[in-house]
Structure formats: C-alpha cells, structure tokens
C-alpha cells in the first residue's frame, strides 16, 4: 500500500477482511485497513454505519466474525479489552464508560488504580491519583476537579475524564469514538490539539466523528463506512467535505 507521503512508516494496525455479524445484521463486511504510527485517521459514516462496532472489535470487546487483526505486525485475537490495552490500544468509548458514583480521578484510574504498600496491604494512593488526574485535566484545558463525583459533571467534563484515561499509559493507538460530541468550541480545540500532539509523538489516532470540520482539521486520512462497507480511504487533502458527505449519504458510491 503506497501512501501519498511515500514515507515507509511502520503499520501499527492492520485489519484484513474483518466482518461482524449480529444475528442477521451484517454490521461490518470485509473491512481492510492499515493505520501507521503517527497516522490520524478520520472514520466517518452515517448512524449505524458500523463505526462503533469497528472500534469495539479493535478494542477487544467482540471477536470479528471473519478476518484478522494485526497489531505491530503480530496477529492478535483479543478476548477482553484488557488484552487490547496491554498491547497499547486505548479507547474513548462512545458512552464514555464512566461510573457516576465515584470521583473523576477514580474513573480515570479505573482498573489501574495506583497503590502504596503498607506492610502486607496495598492502599489506594488517593493523593497520587488526584494529582495525576489534575495534570491530565490541565493538559486538556478542562475545568474538572479530580475529587468531584462524575454524577454532577457536564458532558464536556465527562468527556475529559474519558480522554484522560487514555493518557495513563504509552498507547500506540488511541481510538476515539465521538470524543467531541458534547463539548464546547474551546474544548474541541483542545482535543484536536491533543490529537496533534499525540501524532507528533508517533501515536496513531483513529477519530470517529460526525463533525466534518474536526475531521478535516486534524486527520491525514479519511475512511468512510456505509452500511458496514468501506467506501473510501484516502488522504484528506485529496478529498473534500462535499465528497465525504456524498459518500456518507450514498450519493457517491465510492472514491
């Protein structure tokens, strides 16, 4: 696969013929795609096109019905989200996967809590987690207090919590399922900025969004899904919002 840039960058993620059936519904069919280190790929498509399903397959929530997933050149079969995370895949889920009854910091560190050893026991390092969470919220320019319960937070603050979670480890690929859906103009700019910083560090990002300007602002490449089929996969500078809209709605078969 020759890219416009011509640079021989290493493929982080490769999907080969990935399909997913939910009973009679074919949510994805024969998806091939490659994501290289430092790529920012926009994944677009109408409601129900299969975007979240694709994310969940890559993140280890479901097995694909057919097809192969390669990560860092190795074939993987993720049985649990933890398996995907352990090779370096982080996800911002569309429903954010937050627990309302615990604090923002607790949600950021959920499943990866920091602890301190005291004799034979390990206790939560509340101070360490709060401090690190505050740092991460700062990077996202989000006015989110680590100790506040998620229950009482705005949509944008909740999104910041879910995004902050992906920054705990050195991920190689970050999947973001509509990270900018509920946030302010200023926070959108911060998220897009974060994506650029990630790219500069060589992290690959797959951004799912219905917001055309966001995708055109940060992505190098756009992939369009329609009814589970890949209809386009091209450098963003060779496309246009009009063309992508036509692909999404089906006015244009492929490009």
């Amino acid at each position, binding site marked *: 696969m020759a890219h416009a840039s011509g640079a021989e960058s290493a493929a982080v993620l490769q999907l080969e013929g990935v399909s997913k059936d939910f009973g009679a519904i074919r949510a994805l069919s024969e998806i091939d795609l490659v994501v290289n280190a430092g790529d920012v790929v926009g994944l677009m498509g109408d409601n129900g096109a299969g975007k979240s399903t694709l994310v969940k397959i890559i993140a280890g929530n479901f097995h694909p019905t057919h097809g192969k997933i390669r990560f860092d050149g190795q074939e993987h079969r993720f049985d649990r989200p933890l398996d995907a995370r352990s090779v370096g895949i982080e996800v911002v889920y569309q429903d954010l*996967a937050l*627990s309302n009854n*615990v604090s923002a910091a607790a949600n950021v560190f959920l499943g990866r809590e920091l602890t301190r050893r005291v004799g034979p026991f390990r206790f939560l390092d509340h101070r360490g987690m709060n401090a690190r969470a505050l740092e991460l919220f700062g990077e996202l320019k989000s006015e989110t207090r680590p100790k506040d319960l998620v229950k009482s937070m705005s949509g944008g603050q909740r999104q910041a919590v879910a995004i902050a979670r992906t920054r705990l480890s050195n991920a190689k690929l970050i999947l973001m399922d509509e990270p900018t859906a509920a946030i302010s103009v200023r926070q959108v700019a911060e998220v897009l900025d974060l994506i650029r910083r990630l790219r500069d560090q060589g992290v690959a990002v797959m951004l799912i969004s219905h917001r055309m300007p966001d995708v055109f602002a940060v992505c190098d490449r756009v992939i369009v899904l329609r009814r589970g089929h890949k209809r386009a996969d091209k450098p963003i500078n060779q496309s246009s919002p009009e063309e992508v809209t036509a692909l999404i709605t089906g006015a244009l078969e492929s490009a």
Partner: protein
Amino acid sequence: MTQNVAGPLSFSNVGRDRWWKRGAFASQTAYVAIAFVLITVLVSIFAHNFLSTGNLLNTSKNFSYIAIVALGSTLVIITGGIDLSVGSVMALVAVMTAMLMKTFATTWLAGIPYAGITLAVVCGLGVAALAGLVNGLLISKIRLSPFVTTLGMLSICRGMTYVITQGRGQAPAGPQVDTFYALTDGKLFGLPVPLIYLLVLAAIMGVALRHSRWGRWVFVLGGNEKAAQLTGVPVDRVKISVYVLCALSAGFAGILITGWLGSAPANLATGYELKIIAASVIGGADLAGGVGGPVGAVIGSALIEVIRNGLALFGADTYWEQVFVGTIIILAVLVDHIRTREAE
C-alpha cells in the same frame, strides 16, 4: 506533553457546595444518624430504665448480631445485588457448628486443647463460604438474578438445617465449651464481645471500601458494571467475593447467637433476611447499587433495635415493631428522594 499546560487551573465558575450539602453530611446515613439520636433521646426520656447499664449492654448486644450480617449484606447491596439467604445461612452454620463440636468431643480431637471447637467453627464458616461461593458463581458466571438465586439458597439452607437436626435444637458441647461461651457471649473491657466484633469488622470494612482497589471496584460494580468490565476490573471475582463475605458474616453471627442462646434452634434467624436488608437500607445502602457503607449498616441496625427495645420498655405491644420498622424504611428513602430531587 507539558509544553501546553497554562499554569494551574482556576475554577472561576465552579463553586463548592455548603458543608451540609457535601460528603458525609449529605447522605442518607447522616439523616438516619440524626433520627437515631433523636429517637434514642426520646426513648430515654420516657423510659427511665432505658439508660440503665444492664439495658444498654443488652441492647447493644442484641443489635450486634443483625448489624454484623448487615455489614455483609451492605457489601452485596453496594454492588447492586441482594442476598436473601443470610437468615438461613445463619441457622445452618449455627446448628452445624454446635453439632460438630458435640461430635468432635467424642473423638480423639477431644485430647487436643481447643482442637474440637476450632475445627467446628472453621467447618461452620466453611459451609457459609461455600453457600456464598455458590451464590456468587451462579450470579456472576451464569448471570442468574441475585434475587432468585439467593431465594433458592434461602430455601436450601433452611431445608438442610431441618434435615440434619430433624427440627431439634443443638447445644454446643465438649471439653472447652466454656471457652466457646467466653468467646461468643463474654465481655471484653466491660463490653459484650459481639459488639466488639461488630466494631472491629465495621472498621475493617470501612477501610477496605475506601482505601483498597477491591473496595473501589465494589462501588463501581454498582455504579456502572459495563464500565468496570471495559476498564479491566475483574468483575466476576469482585462479585463472588461480596457474596462469600456476606455469607461469612451470616455464618459468624449464627455462631455468636448460638453462644448467646446456649443452643442453636432449627428455626434460628427465621425471617432475619428482611430485618437485615431493612437495616442496610435504612442506613443508606441503595438497592439500585453504588451507595452504602458500614456506618449506615450499624446505625440502621441500632435504630431498629432501639425501637424494639423502646416499645418493650413502654410496655407497648411489641408486635408494633414491624410496623415502625416498615414506616422508617419508607421515611428514610422518602427523605433521601426529596433531598436528591431538590439538588437537581
């Protein structure tokens, strides 16, 4: 990653709630604690012998049994589950422990000091853990509903209790039976030991819930189980652990009651499951999951006992107890409901 951080964040528009709307003060547990104090004061004004040392010691002992199980039950409720089998687990463990003590006393174990009672208690608690394990496995791995699973376990354990005793009460026996009574019904620093056990267990539970990963996961299971699953929390293991701990608390209380009564009747703790769940719920545990704690379980149990004791001292018909307890359950939940609706 630091090039873009613009100094510390200022929360210009984000105020802080008043102290009474925040943290422990804003919880149902706090309201119920206040109600508890008021009712206790009322009872002590009108029933003069309420504050007598003897009565206070008795009351604090009586409620300890319920409260110990309410601790375990609260853990289950925080995860969004429920355990209806606690009353019959208490009975099964109580009769088994008493019968094993008697049996071991006739074997060579009688020759080793304390071997008989220790082994009997360990076996009794083992049976409790097994019941909890079965509950937990069915609920987490097979995904049966907690209500139905533990309702089944309620019936199984009660049935087993009658099968092995043929309905006859079982008294503990053996060479060191005095030690057994001292450990279950004695006094320490002038306080009844069941109360000491309760306070120690409640303290351990409080620390574990607030300051361990396990405790955090217990809350998150009740808050958003799917989020827990997606972020790699060992959901099944945590769920199984709370059912095992709940059953262990029931078994332990069953053994303590045996020491108190001097015998374990087959109908021991019949109907206690509702009292125990009521204590947890009055204390602020939310049956929808995600909320609760040891302080609430203790206060809820204490409130029920003060009402029962107060009615007895007034010479009132103690059959009213259940009516009062029911009213308090509804009032506690109602107050909490009004408060949270106001906040929105």
